[in-house]
């Protein structure tokens, strides 16, 4: 009895450690998640009219969903990671099959799953904003795109960027960044509406 409960505790502890690693972009944690769970999803999707590539893409989305979930402060683990990832993948895959015009296929599976509607919704909202930002950045052209990515994505300082882009001083770089940023915001907000 004692032995068993210790094991359960250990398992939970491992899962929490894994999720913390995931939240901190720890590549070891990401690798462990892939190693432990991808093959289940692969089997599930390949047995339900999907390909290996479908499995890869769906699993990647489930990983992103989990990643974004663990980053929020209110995150709590209500089930095993395995169950969570499987539930997300199942939901996403079912949806995709429906979009492809394949309704009412009862998915064959023995895996346990939970309801993940709200998490999928959160993922999709972010996905929409992501696509808008991506499109806006990509339509900026150079050097704007790289300059802003350097500043906002890679968190480089203005001086570093000035050197990298060959501006004589950081004021020139700031000036350029400002112009680029105004264009980006205009592009972004023209497609992104708050609320409603």
């Amino acid at each position, binding site marked *: 009895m004692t032995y068993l409960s210790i094991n359960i505790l250990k398992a939970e502890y491992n899962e929490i450690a894994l999720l913390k690693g995931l939240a901190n972009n720890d590549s070891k944690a990401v690798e462990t998640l892939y190693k432990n769970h991808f093959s289940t999803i692969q089997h599930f999707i390949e047995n339900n009219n999907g390909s290996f*590539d479908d499995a890869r893409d769906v699993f990647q989305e489930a990983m992103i969903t989990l990643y974004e979930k663990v980053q929020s402060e209110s995150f709590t683990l209500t089930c095993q990671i395995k169950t969570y990832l499987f539930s997300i993948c199942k939901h996403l895959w079912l949806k995709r099959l429906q979009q492809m015009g394949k*309704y009412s296929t009862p998915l064959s599976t023995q895996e346990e799953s939970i309801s993940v509607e709200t998490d999928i919704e959160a993922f999709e909202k972010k996905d929409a904003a*992501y696509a808008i930002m991506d499109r806006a950045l990509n339509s900026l052209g150079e050097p704007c795109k790289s300059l802003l990515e350097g500043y*906002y994505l890679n968190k480089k300082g203005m001086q570093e960027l000035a050197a990298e882009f060959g501006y004589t001083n950081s004021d020139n770089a700031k000036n350029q960044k400002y112009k680029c940023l105004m264009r980006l915001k205009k592009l972004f907000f023209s*497609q992104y509406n708050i609320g409603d």
Partner: protein
Amino acid sequence: MKQLDDIQLLEAIERYLAGEMSASEAAQFETIRKQTPEIDQMVVEHDMFLLEMGNYANRKNFSKLSTETFNNLYNAGEWAPIDEQTTKFKVIQLWTKYKKVTAIAATVGGFIALFTSTLVMYFSPSLNGSQVLQLSKAIEVIKKNQQVQGHILNEVKTKLPENAKLLSGGSGFLIDTKGYIITNAHVLKGNGAIVINSLGQELNATIVYADKSVDLALLKIIDSDFNQPKSIPYSIRKKATELGEEIYTLGYPRNDNDIVYGKGYLSAQSGFEGDSNAYQIQISANPGYSGAPIFNNNAEIIGIINTRQKQAEGVAFAIKSSKIFDLIEAAQNEQSNEKAVHIAKSMSTSKSSDRKKQIGEMKNFIFNIRSYN
């Protein structure tokens, strides 16, 4: 000078939002913010922007990490596809590379004003609207470059005229090698039309004739880029079709330009409320399938999808193919220059019973149709 001030202001806002100001500086800034609604607005907007930029950066960096991890494990032989040959798919175009953008269409609850086309079910009052759905795509699109979500088409130069507004869309199919296409009249809500083939090539077309009472329309491709095919791999059936006959369709129900295959059977010899111009079919029809051809196993077109019953999933209606001949005749009577339409009446090259092969040949003759003003 003005711009310098703006740059400084933005810098101040960024420092304020990042919590980099000293307490006294922040207090001073908050006072200014309270007194100046414009500045307050800028702060709110920039905060929102930075939040989205942060989300974007997080996801982008994580996706990269995740992809790299996957690729490393894959290359190290951690997994392999179970069996590459077990393809029992009934859909031609699977997402070999799933495009993230498609998820946008599924975004819930108006949080985002979609900038790309949206699938909207279209209710037609004239068609007993509450019970039947027309299957055209209502497209909420403002700018010409944004008509399709997929990257593929955005990179292709669009043939829509400047300032054109896309109004509707659906599917259609070639009936004559010279470029005549049949679709539903309700697919064409605008005066102009472009058609897109399964490879994503856009072609200009004109609306030759439309008959709203039977919901059919004739288009003609007028574009020097159009390569006239030598023959059409299907024919159009003049006679009625048997109950229970297995049928399939090819159309563009999705927001991108991927053609989708659907399978079903003929379930009644008449359409909605006994409409003798139509068949009832059992097929999962989505908006966007409007105008899509329905084939039997002999590669004959037996009908054109136009509506589906709202309450019953999978029940759709199709206009009988014989109506195509009536439409052509009417078009020729009205416009003498359309005398030259030669419908593929007889069986042509393809009588192959191999469905995959049939589809492979046919898909180039089925078009994604968009109508604009």
